[in-house]
């Protein structure tokens, strides 16, 4: 039984904001199915009551003072963008 269908791959690609062709969808379906099947070996392990590790250091919330400080110049940041106008990032229309 396959773990992931071509339609699911297309759905995931959309969620990940990737445009993929039909050929790519076929290739990724096979490869992702292999990888997910491989990953299912984790089901051999009983992990009831095992605490998940998100992070190896036992860090609690790291706080700092909320103080303004100088960082990058707005003009430099804007100049790094592919397109900009009047000191703002320019993008294609969002509303139809």
């Amino acid at each position, binding site marked *: 039984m396959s773990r992931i269908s071509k339609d699911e791959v297309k759905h995931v690609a959309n969620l990940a904001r990737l445009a993929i062709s039909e050929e790519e969808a076929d290739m990724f379906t096979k490869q*992702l199915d292999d990888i997910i099947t491989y990953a299912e070996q984790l089901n051999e392990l009983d992990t009831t009551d095992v605490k998940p*590790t998100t992070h190896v250091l036992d860090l609690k919330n790291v706080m*700092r003072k909320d103080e303004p400080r100088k960082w990058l110049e707005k003009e430099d940041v804007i100049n790094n963008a592919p397109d900009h106008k009047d000191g703002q990032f320019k993008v294609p229309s969002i509303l139809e």
Partner: protein
Amino acid sequence: MSLFDYTLRELQEKLHNKEISVTDLVEESYQRIEAVDGEVKAFLTLNKEQALKQAEELDAARGTDSAALFGLPIGVKDNIVTKGLRTTCASQFLDNFTDPLYEATVVEKLADAKSVTIGKLNMDEFAMGSSNENSSYYATRNPWNTDYVPGGSSGGSAASVAAGEVFFSLGSDTGGSIRQPAAFCGVVGLKPTYGRVSRFGLVAFASSLDQIGPITRTVEDNAYLLEAISGHDKMDATSADVEVPKFTDALTGDVKGLKIGVPKEYLSEGVAPEVKEAVMSALRKYEELGATWEEVSLPHSKYAVATYYLLASSEASANLARFDGVRYGVRTQNAETMLDMFKRSRSEGFGDEVKRRIMLGTFALSSGYYDAYYKKAQQVRTLIKNDFEKVLEDYDVIIGPTTPTPAFKVGEIVDDPLTMYANDILTIPVNLAGVPGISVPCGFSSDGLPIGLQIIGKHFDETTVYRTAHAFEKATDFHKQRPSLGGAQS
């Protein structure tokens, strides 16, 4: 011989006595790059004009400036942000990112220590890969035999040091990306304890696993470079507020009474006989030096690769969402809507491996699958971490091979993601547990390719890892071998 055959301390002495100049060292770098980088392809961007200018300035301070890395030529992996110096992560998405606006913390620390940045080093795109074949520019080659891969993802970092193009380099290691290429290229590479080195300015791949670390020709030089880049950083909330020991003070050559654990899982069937033999011979050397070793078990090792690919890909899918074609990088032409612009910019800018991992991560985090894949992997991560902590209660270090085999040929497994992933089976668990690990040269295969010995220590105990590695290096001469690339170095 090359100037880079000297150790850091020898070079510092020569500089301060004015036997050599910083300009000599920097020119040595660029001449060697000129001579061999057409074959090795370790560099993506050179910093020649700036570096020579800096060398001239430093030369005026020779003899008076005692900065830790004074005048030494370094290469920096291209996922570490360098102000005003092109930073691409070997991705087409950042092909035009020629003017980064700030320095990574490690790069600021290098500047304080007065090393000279020679250029930016090739890698697998966004550090995703084990062979450098996923660079969107060109694949770096192994200096020992250019038909072979240098490993990855810090392939350029390891190859540039092995080829004598720079004195040392920085890499990053998420699942083995410093240690595996160091093993394949016959150099010394350390992944520090998670939190030892600031990740600020390291382009994030998997934030709970990524660490920057040094690649050098000797253990002592590695310890000097780690001293220079370590420490708590207010810009990285996950950097640890712990004291940075003077690692070099621990290099006594004395390992009498050291207790070594050797996981049976690290010498199982998948490990090539000549790799196993090299490791056994290293263990005999440790016995001669007065250490003892015993077989131990890290029973969840076989689950590490699956755990890693689920967790690292999940984190990557979130981290790489920032590449949207709005603020920096490449944007697709003629997109009509915002959504179309996001999708096409990302699809044109990312290579297949990056897309594959983003999709795997998005799938593992998606509604209905989160518990089955992502949470499950986090739980298994706990089991793997516990394995290490348990063994390291009774032993000072864990020793095994760095990789199951020596370097493989270019093109050999590039189309088979799972086989490629399996290459990292001995390095990945170390990242999942967050402990430090080093790879040092411990032999050569019958094909003349280097073999790496991996030494793993307790959290924040790089000191013992270095002491153990240094004692072996002192008692052997594998680290003195040089590839014959481009003819012998004059």
